[in-house]
């Protein structure tokens, strides 16, 4: 007497990306905290000082947030027009910001009023930065010039007018106090040395440059502009290394992860892509609700802060290890593992006489019913487990397939009341177009239509569902037709592009 063979649930290949260490790392963030700002968030900068506050520049204000606060700890509002590029000095004491009114303001982080105001630019200043010696400020403006200012004397040191369009990005070297790089809408990147009159290096990005970034070693330079992210080797005289085109809209911001192993790029296409810096492959991807203008990572990647055009600031915090452990602890509480292994791991001694008990096989609920040939009940028990039906439709489909194999699917589907039928129709609407389940569910759908043909029109719920089902099927048929057309086009193209090959003739020796 053989035992009952349970219904086989087919294992379908998992679609979607594979689980890599990268996805695990970048998925380990909590749900984002969203803060509404007054306008588009153009710049975010983290302080290098211990609590790691960050300055968010949006509209005419600069807000400074603490690492876990949703309310700003400090606000600078003394701007007459749109503020740009709020940046902390490396000691975290001073903050500099440009403004559309061409003035550059320097603030004490604890104060309120500007310590210094640098006047000299004739148009809005989009770029500001401190040099590595902390005594100078770099600015870049829409009047095509970039200038260096001295903080103590609040005087202009030098001015470079080499760019032929707006300067929208710039960065100072962290290793050398005299070197800085600017990127402009004239498609060029220029490397300046404050000790020299002219630029020392020019690179052509061939798109308006939106963002530049230096590697910690400062041997490599990354620039973003248009849809491209380009990497340049500065030590080889500005030779282009790679050009990445993974976004389908302008890339607006670049950032490096804290260990320098991963490069992040944010774009107007609402995605943040993370690249491996050794092979420049995309290893992960974040989606946001709106076009992204600014992006910053907290030290140790503790949080990812993203500013968007709709003025929303989104902050994702990394899950702390305690929380993880808490989750694991909860899981351990649920199944009483000890009961399952009770006495199982006992190793018999040498003289023990072993009495083996036959292992009782546990059948699933639907299998118990199938064993008893209760066909309707088998389907019902499966459909009633709503969570199971939604999450794992494979099981329900497998039960239906088994009933179909037994030739009793029609009997199992028949004789249902309104509630039962609508439950069934809901399931069909959810899964009938899934290519994995279509062969089975189409037969089931046909059977249902056959059986309940006579009672159509008696229940509004069922009727509505039937109409939905009809629309769904029609749409799917249209899709399939379109796909076939595309396939035909592709075939034509491929056939045209392939070189004609001689067909070997019978008898000809080759």
């Amino acid at each position: 007497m053989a035992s009952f063979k349970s219904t086989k649930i087919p294992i379908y290949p998992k679609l979607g990306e594979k689980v890599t260490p990268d996805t695990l790392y970048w998925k380990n963030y909590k749900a984002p905290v969203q803060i509404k700002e007054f306008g588009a968030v153009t710049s975010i900068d983290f302080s290098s000082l211990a609590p790691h506050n960050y300055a968010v520049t949006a509209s005419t204000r600069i807000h400074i947030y603490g690492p876990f606060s949703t309310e700003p700890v400090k606000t600078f509002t003394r701007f007459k027009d749109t503020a740009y590029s709020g940046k902390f000095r490396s000691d975290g004491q001073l903050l500099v910001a440009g403004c559309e009114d061409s003035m550059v303001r320097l603030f004490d982080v604890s104060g309120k009023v500007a310590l210094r105001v640098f006047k000299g630019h004739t148009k809005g200043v989009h770029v500001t930065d401190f040099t590595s010696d902390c005594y100078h400020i770099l600015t870049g403006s829409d009047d095509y010039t970039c200038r260096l200012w001295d903080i103590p004397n609040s005087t202009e040191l030098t001015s470079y007018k080499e760019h032929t369009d707006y300067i929208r990005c710039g960065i100072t070297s962290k290793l050398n106090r005299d070197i800085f790089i600017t990127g402009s809408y004239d498609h060029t990147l220029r490397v300046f040395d404050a000790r020299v009159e002219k630029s020392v290096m020019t690179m052509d990005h061939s798109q308006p440059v939106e963002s530049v970034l230096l590697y910690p070693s400062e041997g490599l330079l990354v620039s973003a502009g248009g849809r491209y992210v380009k990497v340049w080797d500065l030590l080889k005289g500005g030779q282009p290394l790679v050009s990445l085109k993974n976004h389908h809209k302008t890339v607006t911001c670049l950032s490096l992860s804290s260990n320098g192993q991963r490069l992040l790029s944010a774009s107007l296409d609402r995605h943040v892509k993370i690249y491996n810096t050794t092979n420049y492959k995309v290893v992960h991807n974040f989606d946001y609700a709106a076009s992204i203008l600014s992006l910053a990572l907290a030290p140790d990647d503790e949080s990812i802060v993203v500013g968007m055009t709709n003025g929303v600031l989104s902050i994702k915090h990394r899950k702390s290890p305690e929380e993880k452990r808490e989750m694991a602890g909860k899981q351990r509480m649920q199944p009483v593992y000890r009961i399952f292994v009770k006495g199982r791991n006992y190793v018999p001694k040498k003289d023990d006489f072993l009495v083996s008990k036959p292992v009782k096989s546990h059948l699933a609920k639907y299998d118990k019913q199938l064993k008893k040939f209760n066909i309707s009940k088998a389907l019902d028990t499966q459909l009633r487990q709503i969570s199971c039906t939604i999450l794992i439709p494979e099981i329900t489909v497998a039960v239906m397939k088994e009933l179909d194999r037994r030739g009793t699917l029609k009997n199992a589907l028949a004789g249902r009341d309104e509630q039962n039928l609508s439950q069934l129709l809901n399931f069909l609407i959810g899964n009938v177009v899934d290519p994995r389940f279509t062969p089975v569910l189409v037969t089931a759908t046909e059977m249902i239509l056959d059986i309940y043909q006579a009672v159509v029109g008696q229940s509004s719920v069922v009727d509505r569902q039937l109409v939905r089902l009809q629309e769904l099927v029609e749409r799917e048929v249209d899709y399939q037709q379109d796909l076939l057309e595309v396939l035909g086009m592709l075939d034509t193209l491929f056939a045209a592009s392939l070189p004609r090959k001689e067909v070997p003739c019978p008898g000809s020796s080759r």
Partner: protein
Amino acid sequence: MVEHAEIRMVHRGGSKINFREPVITNDSRFLLCAAGESVNVYSTSTEEYVHDLQGHTGLVTGVVLNPSNHLQVYSCSADGTVRLWDFTDAILIKTFIIGYPIYSIYVSEKHGGVVFLVVPMANYKSSELFQLVAVHLPHSGDQEVEARELSAVLCDVSPHAGAASFGREGEYIAAVRGLQLEVFFFKKQKSYRFSLKSGKKKGAKNAFTCISCHPKEDCIATGHEDGKIRMWRNFNQKKEYTYSTLHWHHGAVNTLCFTPEGTNLLSGGIESVLVHWHYTQENQKDFLPRLGAAITHIAVSPDGSLFSTSHSDNKITIIQSCVKVSAVIQGLVKGDGVWTNLIIDPRSKALVLNGKPGHLQFYSLHRDKQLYNLDIVQQEYIHEEGLDQFEVVKAAFDARGDWLATVEERRKKGAELEINLKLWAYDELTQSFVLNTTVTAPHEDQITAMFFSPSPETTMLVTTSLDGHFKAWLLADHSDANEGFWACDFVGGYHLLKPGCCSFSADGSLLSVGFQEVVTVWSPASWELLTTLSQPPGAIRDLCFGRLSCSKYLLGASTKNQLCCWNLLTCSLEWSTPMDVSLLQTDPLSENMAAFCSQSGSSDLFVFKPSEPRPLYSQKALCTGKVQHAVFAPRDQMLESCEERTQWLNRSQLYFFTQHMDLLTFSTKTEEDRLLASSKQLMVDDSVAVTPFYLLLGKHRGQQLEKQEALTNPMAERTQLPQGSIAIKELLHTPAHVLPSASFLCAMFVRSLLISSSSAREEKEHEEGEMEREEEDSEGEADPRLGESAAWGPPEEFGAPALTKAQERELRKVKTFDHSWLSSLLDC
């Protein structure tokens, strides 16, 4: 034909054991069942085959115990004889010649010396009318007796077994046929007929299928096609008979049987559930479900302790009083068809083919025993007629037997085909195949051929399908997973023609695929189309590469009576011959090929080498009908035949299935002689059932004896222990209950190990000098001196001269005892 006399076609195993109801002997030790032209005897406890009763020349159609002697059995056969056997020793006692083909046999205790047989009606020999006749078996000393005294009892009966039954103490016999039940009372010599309405209105099928009479009461149980069981009572009159109905079966009731005391009724049908009805409480029933296949017969042992059910898959299950299955006797399963063709498993050398539905069976050809069943479909089998079930349609092994590929198929009416390709890996630990990969819908249409590449480096599988493609599947190396899985490597086609067959060359460097009329040759290494060969008209049905010295040839058989042979070096046709080849098979161990041709309703066989114009062997009119399945099975030992005609059978043996699903093979004279000799040898010492335990013990005993001999031999060089071995044999072979007490045996046993006194004394006289003779003799009369140990050594060398005469005598007395038995016992 005369010159081929040394090659003979023989049936080799696989006979039907479920044809008729089996018989369990009175002591419940043996089970007898009709199997082809002989009656097989199985042990009920070990399920081993004991021996067979051979002698009938036609199909055996019934076996019953002799009611007057429970150690004898009657068997009837279509050759028109009834034979009486002693089944414990397989001795034919008597043969009664009836003269008509017999279809069933019934006996009753009350009618001693009479057997009831179902024979065709005398006047309508060709028609399908049968009658039940009583035959008085004449008492005569002769071996062969003519029994022509037939007296008709009932006319127009069914020839099926189970359609007639004796009632209470043999007072009446009841038989069913169609819609009619007929009861014949022997005392009154009168018969009553009861008929049912055909009842076609409600779609009910009332026809009788089987019958069983209660052994103690006047009650007849009948089974019907619609699954009902009717219990008839009060039937000794025409009018006021009654019946009650029991209904559980949803298909036809195939068989019914009362237990000997009449307390229970057993029934079985297509559901493969043994239903156990309680006679007194009719609504109470027990079930024994999932017995594997439809039940065709049920038999109960005379003491009621064992039931046996025969199943449609050539299986007999022995059940202990409906509680649990105790043994399964499984023959070669012959299902509805052999779709997989015949395959030889390279590991176990077993024949592999479709077994139970959804299974592959591994059948040992040498032992005529099913080794195991491999569940391919892995689904609960629903025993119901008219269902579309999954069937295993293709199977293939790779060259080493590490991988097995199977294709299962389910065709639904009006719906698309469901196909699964499964790949199984051989697991050394469990000694069985484990599922590795399942590919659902590998092709869009039926798979026509499937082969593994024979090359040892790559394991590659090629499938061809009616959807116009052939696909190559490779084992994908997966570094982080523990095991690899199979994935499609290449999809090929040729002008959207439908490929029908494919074949790999012996080294796996070439693949030929037959696309209807065109044969394409591909290189599996680069998947380049190397060349195409075509020889219209007719689509290619079979393709085979030559082997060894003939590997440059490619043979193809087309549907339009053409057998072509291409030379692959010149890419040209070497020869072709008009032949309607239904099957082309290559011998894996030689260059030989076998072609089965069908001609005017019968099949011919040609065995040839592709390089030689003359066939090695040909046999016309092999059997009626087309031969669809054949295989070359490698032999265990090579034959050393030098004769030209039998040389092709040296390395492997050709097995084939006829249209009627008989497994046949070719055997040579030398081989048969050897088989006969070995069977005779077996007969000598096999008086009891050869159980594995006995074999183990017997072997162990034999080794011990040998060891003993080896130990004793150096001690008593010239003397053997002839009596000893006989005594041991007696000890081992006599049943325990007839042996005397153990203490008595011990003495006998020990004595048997000693050396006989007469021979020992001669030795002594020879060894010891003249001077001791008088003393020796004087002692010898008093003491039971039986032997002497050679290892004891001559006493003179270390015997001290200071010893007195009496002491010396004492010593000698001790010395004369044989101690070898003691040492040998200690050694054991």
